[in-house]
C-alpha cells in the first residue's frame, strides 16, 4: 500500500477544480488510457493581463494522479502564464507534502499538461514528428527524459522510471536511458563500442552477427524467459525466430526492432531483421 500524505488523500477524496471549462482559452492534454493515466486541463485566461482566471481538470489515474492534478489547478489559479510556467513538478509534489518516489511521474504529468495548455494557447505547438521516442511502452521522448532529469537532478534509470515511467515496461530502452544520463552528467561510457572494420567480408559479417546475438541479445531475451534462433543471413537481411516467452508476446515488434537496432549498431547500418 502506498504511503500517501494527508494532503494527497484529501485532494484525492475531495478534489478541487474537477470538470471542464466551457469554451476554454487553453486546453492541455497528456497521457492516454493505455498508459494508465491521463490528464485534461482546461484554462480560462484573461487576455489583457495574461492571468489564469480559472482552471479545471479531468484525470484518469490513481489517487496520486488525481491529487497532483487538483494541486496543479490550485497552484496556477490567479497566476500569469509566465509565473505559471515557473511551477515545477517539485512544486506540485511539495504542495502535496511529498509523493512516494515511484509516484513522482504523477507530478510530472501535471507540469506537462500545463505546458501543453500554454504552448497551445500561444500557438507554439511543435510538430510531433520531431520527438524521438525512447520508451516505446509508455511513449516517452528523449526530450522529456532530458528535461525531467535535469530539472530534478536524476542520475539513475530507476529515478527516470519513477519520474517519467520510461523503462518501466519491457525494459528494452534501459541502455538508451543510461546513455542519455551519461551524456547529461558527463560520465564516460563504461564499455567501449567494439570498433568494426568498414568493409566486412561475408564470412566476417556472419561471424559478427552470430557473436552479437550470442553475447548481446540472447542473454537479455533469456532473462525474460524468451529466446532467439538465427535462421538465415541473406546479404544484409537477418532472419530470426523468436522462442519461449517471446512467442505471442505483446512486445514482440518492439523486441524485433531492438534486435535490429543492436545489429545496426554493432555490425552494420544496413542490417535489417525479419522474423522467419
Amino acid at each position, binding site marked *: 500500500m*502506498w504511503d500517501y500524505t494527508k494532503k494527497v*488523500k484529501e485532494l*484525492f*477524496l475531495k*478534489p478541487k477544480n*474537477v*470538470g471542464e471549462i466551457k469554451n476554454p482559452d487553453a486546453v492541455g*492534454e497528456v497521457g492516454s*488510457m*493505455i498508459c*494508465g*493515466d*491521463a*490528464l*485534461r486541463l482546461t484554462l480560462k485566461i484573461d487576455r489583457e493581463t495574461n492571468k489564469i482566471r480559472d482552471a479545471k481538470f*479531468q*484525470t*484518469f*489515474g*490513481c*489517487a496520486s*494522479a*488525481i491529487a497532483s492534478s487538483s494541486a496543479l489547478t490550485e497552484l496556477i489559479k490567479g497566476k500569469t502564464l509566465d509565473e505559471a510556467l515557473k511551477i515545477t513538478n517539485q512544486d506540485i509534489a511539495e504542495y502535496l507534502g511529498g509523493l512516494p518516489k*515511484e509516484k513522482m511521474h504523477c507530478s510530472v504529468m501535471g507540469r506537462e499538461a500545463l505546458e501543453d495548455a500554454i504552448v497551445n494557447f500561444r500557438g507554439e505547438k511543435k510538430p510531433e514528428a520531431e520527438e524521438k521516442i525512447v520508451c516505446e*511502452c*509508455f511513449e516517452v521522448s528523449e526530450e522529456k527524459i532530458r528535461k525531467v532529469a535535469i530539472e530534478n537532478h536524476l542520475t539513475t534509470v530507476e529515478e527516470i*522510471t519513477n519520474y517519467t*515511467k520510461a523503462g*518501466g*515496461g519491457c525494459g528494452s530502452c534501459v541502455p538508451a536511458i543510461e546513455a542519455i544520463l551519461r551524456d547529461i552528467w558527463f560520465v564516460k561510457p563504461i564499455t567501449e563500442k567494439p570498433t568494426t572494420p568498414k568493409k566486412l567480408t561475408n564470412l566476417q559479417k556472419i561471424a559478427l552477427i552470430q557473436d552479437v546475438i550470442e553475447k548481446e541479445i540472447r542473454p537479455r531475451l*533469456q*532473462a*525474460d*524467459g524468451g*529466446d532467439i534462433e538465427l535462421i538465415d543471413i541473406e546479404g544484409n537481411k537477418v532472419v530470426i525466430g523468436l522462442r*519461449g*516467452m517471446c512467442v*505471442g508476446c*505483446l512486445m514482440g515488434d518492439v523486441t524485433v526492432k531492438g534486435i535490429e537496432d543492436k545489429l545496426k549498431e554493432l555490425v552494420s547500418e544496413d542490417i535489417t531483421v525479419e522474423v522467419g
Partner: protein
Amino acid sequence: MNTIYLDNNATTKIAPEAFDEMTPYLTDLYGNPSSMHTFGGSLHNKIEEARERVAALIGAQLDEIIFTSCGTESDNTALMSAVESYPQKRHIITTRVEHPAVFNFAKHLARKGFRVTFIPVDNFGRLDMDAFSKALDDDVVVVSVMYANNESGVIFPIEEIGEILKERKIIFHTDAVQAVGKLPIDVKKLPVDMLSLSGHKIHAPKGIGALYLRRGTRFYPYIIGGHQENGRRAGTENIASIIGLGKACELAAKNIKKEVAYLSVLRDKLEKRLMELCPDVRVNGDRENRLPNTTNMSFEYVEGEAILLRSNEYGICASSGSACTSGSLEPSRVLRAMGVPFTAIHGSIRFSLSRYNTEEEIDTVIEIMPKIIKQLRELSPFGKEKIKK
C-alpha cells in the same frame, strides 16, 4: 467502520476454531517434537493428527503429505524435486498465467539453461490445449499447471492434462493453492503427482503450507538438514501452524458442499447487480468454469487504485490488476495474457469471498461501489459521450 473483506484470494481470516486449537502450542506446550522427553516428543502425535486432516481434505494417504512453510515453498520444492530427480531432461512446461511462485521459478530455471514453454490462454483465460499438446516432447521433465487462477478464478482442466501426462509418464505438478477448500479435490481420482496447498488461503495462519506427493513419485528435498518430515523437509516443525492448518482443513472438508453453494450465490448476486448498476463493465474470465468465490470485473474509464482507495474509505477490501497497484508500471500479467485490453486492465477489480462474508456485506458493496465508479467517471476525461447514452 466495519471491514468488508472481499480479498480472500490474497489471504483469509484464521478460523476461530483453528486459532483456539493452536494457541496452547504457542505458549505452554512449546516443546520440540523430535525430543526424547514426553513434553516435546508427545507433540509428534499432534502433527500426525493434523496430517490426517490435511490428507482427508484431498483424499491423500498420510505419508503423501509434506508440511512446508508456504505455498511458494511447496511450488519451488515440486519443480526443483522434478528437475533434480530426472537430470537428463531439460524441458519444463507451465503456463503464462501461473502464480509468481511457479512462473518466476520457471524463469529462474530458464536462466540456468532449462527450456521453458509457457502455454498461453484464450480470451476467457482458458488454457490453450492445442499449444499444450504441441509442446510435449520426450525431453519434458515436469509440467506445472495451476488448478485455478488466483486473479480470474478460472479452473484449468487438470484431470484431462493429468491423463495425457500419465500415459507419457511425465511428472505433473499442480499449484492448487486457490482451489483447495473451495472445490472438492480427490487425488485418488485426480492424476497429479504433486499438489501444492497453502494455509492462509483456507483460514489457517500464514507461514504454513503443504505439498502432496503421490506414493512412488521420485523426490528430492529442497530444504536440507534434519530428519523432519521423513527427511523430505528439514527444519523444526511449525507445530502451532501445522495444527491450525489441520483444523482449517477439517472445517473445509466438513462444509465444502454447503460453502460452494453459499459463495457462488453471493458472488453471482454481487456480479449481477454491479453489472446492472454500472454501465461499461465487463467480467474477465470464463464465467462457466471458475472458483465459486471469485469475480474479476473491469470498470472502463477509471483506474483500479483509485477505486480501491475510495472503497477503502468504506472499509471495503478488494484488489486490482492495475499497474498502479502492482509495484511495477506494468498491469497484471494474467489479464494481459488473457488479452484483456489495457484500458480494461487498469480498471479491473477482483472480489474474492469467503465463508465469513454475509449477504448484508454484499448488499453494502452493491450500494456503495456504483457510487464510487460514478464519481470517478465524472473525474475522468474518458467515456463521457458513451455513458450519457
